C-alpha cells in the first residue's frame, strides 16, 4: 500500500488529438500520392483538444466521481490516469498500483468461457494466477453467475459481463482503482453490492475514481465529485453539493453533447 499523502495529482493536463481528414485510414497510397509531382498537398491535420489545463489533487482513501456531458473529457482523463495514453501537456502522477475497468468489452475475450475470462481479466489486472486460484470461489460467489461459468462470454448479456469483470475487480489489491461507466448496466441488486464493495475498499484506504452519468447514484457513492465541461475542470467539491448544482445546471439547458474543436 502506498503511503504517499496524495493519491492522484494532475498538473495542467491537456490532450490534443490530431485528426487527419485526408488520410484517416493510414494508407501508403495517400502518402505516396502526396509525393507525386503536382499532387494537391495534404490538408494539415486538425487539432482537437479533448482536455485542457486540468489540475487537481486527490488524497488517498475515498471515492471520487467524474461527471460531465458526452465529449466533456471524462473518459480521456481516466485513460491518462490509467497510463493508457500520455497527456500532450502537463503531468499526471498516480501513486501506487493502478487497476482499471475502462471498457468492459475490451477486457473480455468473447471466445473464451467465463471461467477462462476470470484468469484473463485477473492477470491483465496484475493478479497472479495463484491469487486468482485463492479467491476463485469468492469471485464466483460475488458475480452470482456460477451456472453460466462454463459457457462462452460471447453469449453473456452486458450485465453478466459486468458481473464477471467487477467480481475480479473487487479482489484487486491495487491502491488506485478506476471505473468508467461500468455500473450503468448493473441491475439494482448487483449495483447495491458494487456500491457497498466500493465503499468498503475506500474504507480500507484505496482511492476509487468513478465516471458515471447517474447523478443519484453518484451522490450516494462518492465523497467528492469533479465536473468536466468541454475538456476543462469546471468544479470539484463535496458530492451532494455538486449533484444538486449540476442537476440545476442541466435543467438550465447548457448540457448535451459537445465537441471542443479548436484550431
Amino acid at each position, binding site marked *: 500500500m502506498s503511503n504517499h499523502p496524495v493519491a492522484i495529482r494532475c498538473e495542467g493536463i491537456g490532450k490534443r488529438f490530431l485528426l487527419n481528414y485526408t488520410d484517416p*485510414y*493510414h494508407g501508403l497510397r495517400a502518402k505516396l500520392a502526396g509525393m507525386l509531382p503536382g499532387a494537391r498537398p495534404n490538408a494539415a491535420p486538425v487539432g482537437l483538444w479533448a482536455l485542457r489545463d486540468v489540475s487537481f489533487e486527490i488524497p488517498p482513501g475515498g471515492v471520487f466521481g467524474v461527471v460531465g456531458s458526452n465529449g466533456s473529457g471524462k473518459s480521456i482523463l481516466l*485513460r491518462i490516469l490509467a497510463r493508457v495514453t500520455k497527456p500532450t501537456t502537463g503531468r499526471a502522477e498516480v501513486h501506487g498500483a493502478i487497476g482499471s475497468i*475502462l*471498457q468492459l468489452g*475490451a*477486457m473480455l*475475450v468473447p471466445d*473464451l468461457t467465463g471461467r477462462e475470462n476470470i484468469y484473463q481479466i485477473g492477470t491483465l489486472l496484475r493478479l497472479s494466477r495463484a491469487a486468482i486460484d485463492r479467491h476463485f470461489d469468492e469471485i464466483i460467489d460475488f458475480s452470482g453467475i456460477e451456472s453460466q461459468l462454463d459457457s462462452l462470454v460471447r453469449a453473456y448479456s452486458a450485465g453478466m459481463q459486468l458481473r464477471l469483470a467487477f467480481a475480479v475487480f473487487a479482489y484487486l489489491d491495487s491502491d488506485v482503482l478506476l471505473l468508467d461507466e461500468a455500473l450503468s448496466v448493473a441491475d439494482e441488486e448487483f449495483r447495491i453490492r458494487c456500491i457497498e464493495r466500493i465503499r468498503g475498499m475506500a474504507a480500507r484506504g484505496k482511492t476509487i475514481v468513478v465516471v458515471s452519468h447517474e447523478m443519484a447514484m453518484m451522490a450516494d457513492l462518492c465523497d467528492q465529485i469533479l465536473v468536466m465541461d468541454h475538456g476543462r475542470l469546471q468544479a470539484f467539491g463535496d458530492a451532494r453539493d455538486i449533484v444538486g448544482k449540476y442537476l440545476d445546471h442541466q435543467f438550465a439547458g447548457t448540457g448535451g453533447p459537445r465537441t471542443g474543436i479548436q484550431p
Partner: protein
Amino acid sequence: MLRWSELAAYRDFLSMLVWRELHLRYRHTLIGAGWSFLNPFLTMLVFSLIVPNLVSRQTLAASTGGVPYAAYVYCGMAPWACFSHALTRCNMSLVDQSALLRNMYFPRLALPLSCVLAALTELLISLAALSVLMAVLRVPPSRNLALLPLFFVPLIVASLGAGLILAMVQVRYRDVFFLMQFGIQLGLLVTPVWFPLSALHGPARWVVALNPMTAVVQGFRWAVFGIDAPSPDVVAISGITTAALLWVGLQYFRARQETVADHV
C-alpha cells in the same frame, strides 16, 4: 525504456496470451495442434517430390550428407515455419488488440512477445514430428543434439526483432500485411531449407548469408544430423543481421509504444 522488470510482473498475463492464442486457434479444428506441423510437413512433401528429380542421386546424397532428403528438408522447415508463423502473428498483434490497447495499461511488448512464444511452442510440436519422421526413415540423431537449444537463440532474436517492426509499422500502414506475406513466400526460396548452402557460390552465397534464418537452419541441421556445420563467415554475417534486426526492432517499438493507443 522497455521496462523488462515490468514485463516480469505481467508474466502470468503473458502466459495467458500464449495459451489463448494456441487455444483459440486450434480448439475448433479437426486435427487441433496437428496443423502446426502439417504446414512444414506438406511443404516438405512438395520439395521431396520435385527436387530429387532435378539432380542425380549421387549429387543429392553428397549434398545432404546421406540424410534422406525428406528428413533433411523437414529439419530446415521446422525453424523456418516457426519464423514465418511468428512474423505473421506479430504483424497483426497490435492492430487486432486495438480495443485492449486503447483501454488497458500493460507492457505493449507482451503482445508481439506472446506471438513469438506461441510460434516456439508450435516448433516443439514440429520437432516431435521430426523425431517420428527420423524413426520411420531410420535416421539416427547426431551427438550434437544437446546443442540444439543453442540455435533457438538466433531464431528467437530474429523473430522478435522482425516481429516488433512489423507489428508497429502495421499500426501506421495497413499495406504492410500484404508486403509481409509476399516477403515470407520469397524468404523460403532464399533460405537453405531445400538446398545446402554449399551448392551456392559467389554473390548468391553472400546474399543468402545475409538472411538471418540461414545460420539457424544450418545450425538445426548440424545439431540434428551432424551435417552442414555452419561456416564461420556465414555465422558472422547472419549473426550481425540478426542482432541488428533485434536492435532496430527494440528501438522502433520503444519509440512508438507510448503513443500506440492513440493511433491503433
